[in-house]
């Protein structure tokens, strides 16, 4: 790392983060290390409490030797990358056809009312944020939600309420 880059990215590209990214880089041929961009962004996002800043994306671009805009393209294309702060528990409600027919709209209404925040906002205590996502691939258990890395299926407002209390 040159001194300029060291100054700019040294505090985010820490040794454990780099080690973690390197594991993914090792999966690809050396001249295609940019294939690890999605994993690198995920690692960076987890490290930063669930969301990405421009600086973090620039660090990924620098580390994988990519144009910065190419990283921005990936990070804005996929919905699992966040560009605003999120709660400790990011509640993703599926809005696609099966879940919608089975009442995902009600879940969203309930959450917004119960938590006092709208989509994309974080509760004052920083614990929750709500997000609408495209198909979670769990139609068989519709309506479905993903909270953190955990899937929850056949949801109703009552079940959801209990889940949130358990998370609290």
């Amino acid at each position: 790392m040159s001194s300029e880059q060291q100054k700019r990215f040294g505090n985010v590209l820490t040794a454990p983060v780099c080690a973690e990214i390197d594991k993914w880089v090792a999966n690809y041929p050396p001249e295609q290390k940019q294939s690890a961009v999605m994993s690198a962004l995920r690692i960076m996002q987890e490290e930063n409490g669930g969301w990405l800043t421009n600086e973090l994306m620039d660090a990924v671009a620098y580390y994988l030797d990519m144009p910065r805009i190419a990283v921005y393209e990936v990070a804005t294309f996929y919905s699992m990358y966040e560009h605003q702060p999120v709660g400790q528990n990011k509640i993703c409600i599926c809005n696609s056809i099966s879940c919608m027919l089975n009442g995902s709209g009600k879940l969203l209404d309930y959450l917004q009312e119960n938590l006092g925040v709208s989509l994309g906002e974080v509760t004052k205590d920083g614990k929750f944020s709500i997000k609408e996502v495209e198909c979670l691939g769990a139609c068989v258990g519709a309506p479905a939600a993903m909270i953190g890395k955990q899937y929850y299926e056949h949801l109703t407002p009552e079940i959801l309420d209990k889940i949130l209390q358990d998370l609290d």
Partner: protein
Amino acid sequence: MSDNSTFEIEINGVTLEAHPDEMVIQVADRNGINIPRFCYHEKLSIAANCRMCLVEVEKAPKPLPACATPVMEGMKVYTDSPLARGAQKGTMEFLLINHPLDCPICDQGGECELQDVAMGYGGDVSSYTEGKRVVMDKNLGPLIATEMTRCIHCTRCVRFGQEIAGLREMGAVGRGEHTLIGTYIEQAISSEMSGNIIDVCPVGALTAKPSRYSARAWELNQSNSVAAHDCVGSNINIHTFRDQVNRVVPLDNEHINECWLSDRDRFSYEGLMHQDRLGEPAVLDHGEWTRQDWQIALARTAEILQTAVAEHGEDQVGILVSPNATLEEMYLLFRIADHLGISNIDHRLRQTDFSDQDNAPVSPSLGVAIAELDEQNAVLMIGSNICKEQPIIAHRLRKASLNGASIMSLNMRDYDTHFEQDEKLLGCPSGVINHLAAVTRAVLELNNQQAPSDLSDILAHNEPGDEHKRIATKLMDAEQGSVILGVQAISHPHYSVLEVLATQLAETAGVTLGYLTDGANTAGACQAGILPHRKTAGEDRADPGMDAGQMLSGTLKAYVLFNLEPEYDCWNAEQTIKVLTAAEHVVCLTPYVTDTMRGYADVLLPVTPYTETSGTFVNIEGNWQSFQGAVSAHAESRPGWKVLRVLGNLLDLSACDYMSSEQVREELASHVIDVAAGKPPVDRVPVKLFDQPDAGLQRLTGISIYGVDNITRRADSLQKTPVAQDQMIRINSKLAGKMQLRDMDRVFVKQANNRIRMELVIDDGVPDQCVWIPGGTEHTAQLGDLFGDIELEAD
């Protein structure tokens, strides 16, 4: 094309010849069959994302995109069958869903591909009644205006950045309906070829900011011309509105600039009508400047020249000519000087070492055609900031590099390039010489050749390292290779040594030696005889005159300056102004006047820039490219060749009754038959050893990309770009550490008798004990030699 075999396909019932690796659209284009398209561009990769070029192909179940459908033997294509037309119409309707249709207030209106194709292939009404998408604009800097709501996501600008400019700054962010073309974070596009995205954009999303809202496409007149800011001679179209230059766009020439243009050539026109333009001739009379008629001003000029020659001798008059003057102007200046017996005439204003000038080529040349650069296997650039100095040549080298060529450099600063450099050698001025000697020695050793006796000392002193051997091997192995001396090599304080070594290196390695010179017409100046040691077409002068350096080291009685601002254009700004101020008489033929110029001049004659005169530039391939004036001369100013013709008459120059610039050119052409043949070599200058490191700090100079000449320096929008705003000096971290300086600190730079305050950047691409300073800028116009001793002082 890799495969020369051909077969037949049928388009709209016509049998056509096709090559196996072609796409349908290429065959159609070659045969004048129109297929609508937005994303396809012949110089860019195929994206096939606009779907406008859908055509019917026999036996295919649905319409196929012509740009991404490879031809097959016996294929039958229909571009205007009901199926094809229906597909095109449907696509057009989709593309217009989010387009604002604000043609009446759009700069692209009248020259818009979307407009044209919608007229030809679209429907009359849209079935879409919902709300349209609106996109917030991003500021892409002073050159490119954006209206991204109009964007149809063809991604030509994105691909241009990635594939041509080599600098991916634009991208498609977001997804689906929310996709936006932009830079994501607000930043000015920094490529020196960025203006080309205005041309490739098929809609009004990206338009030229400087000429925005100023005229409609159909109100403009178009004149072919030649760009006047580098030795490439890019072909341009000048668009004029009410007898003013409104904008400049590229004119396709596959041999030179293809369909591209550098930003400098595109936007420099803004400087043409700067308030500094000189409108009338003026003469200094008892310390007062008075406007005068041409007749009186020219008579005064003739009198000054004749008196100076009669009273002080021919060697007391010096003529300095900008390398951007036209060939015709140069030839007439040569004739006038020759008639008066003056041989102090030169155009090499940023050069200081002329000692090997007798071995210089009659006309400096790239050695290969510009288009042939694409096919080089190995190129060594010496002293060149190629991307900033000749962006089109850099683009060619990038193509060569992508074809697998090794591009290598030997520089006094590690300049950024948009292509891979296989090897980079870096050195202070004497370090560069030693590196080049080591490479030369490595080549001689590989060839089992003895060092020529005059070089034996310097070669013995420089043991080749691995990097020198690698460069030598690559040059030796290249089927087509080049060694190129760039602008900064020519300005090098020991240029003659570099030239001797580079000549030896090229000869031994069996590669061509090329030059990339300063200005638009250096080759023309050499052919026309704007040299103290040679006349027209390289004929030796019996009694060589003073070179630019000598003319400006001690004061002569009288000077003639043609189209230049010496404080920016000469080797030593401070000294030059001092010398000119002390001279008895200075005549300036110039498009612009400044207070500095009024301070030393006696006569000011307004001559026109290249857009207001006919003329010829000789590019670095040796190509004579003539052009006509695009607009009338400003106020009382006159084309330089006309002014010089009248001056010639006043001086009783015989056969000086030219009726047109073409006549002047034809006369010169009859003298210049075969300049490429060169001259028999004369003894080279003795080469001394450079074994002592320079004692103090050394100044290094790169002329700022937008500081190269009087027009560019006045082009407002170019001056607002980040690269022009970067007026900082550069030192490496070692020197900064020693002097306890930090990034962005202010320091005093001391050279000659001046002391200026500048900001510094720490850049480890600068050699030890060196201070890199941008040249051709207001600040540095007070300093001394472009290279040489300098002092730094903390603020």
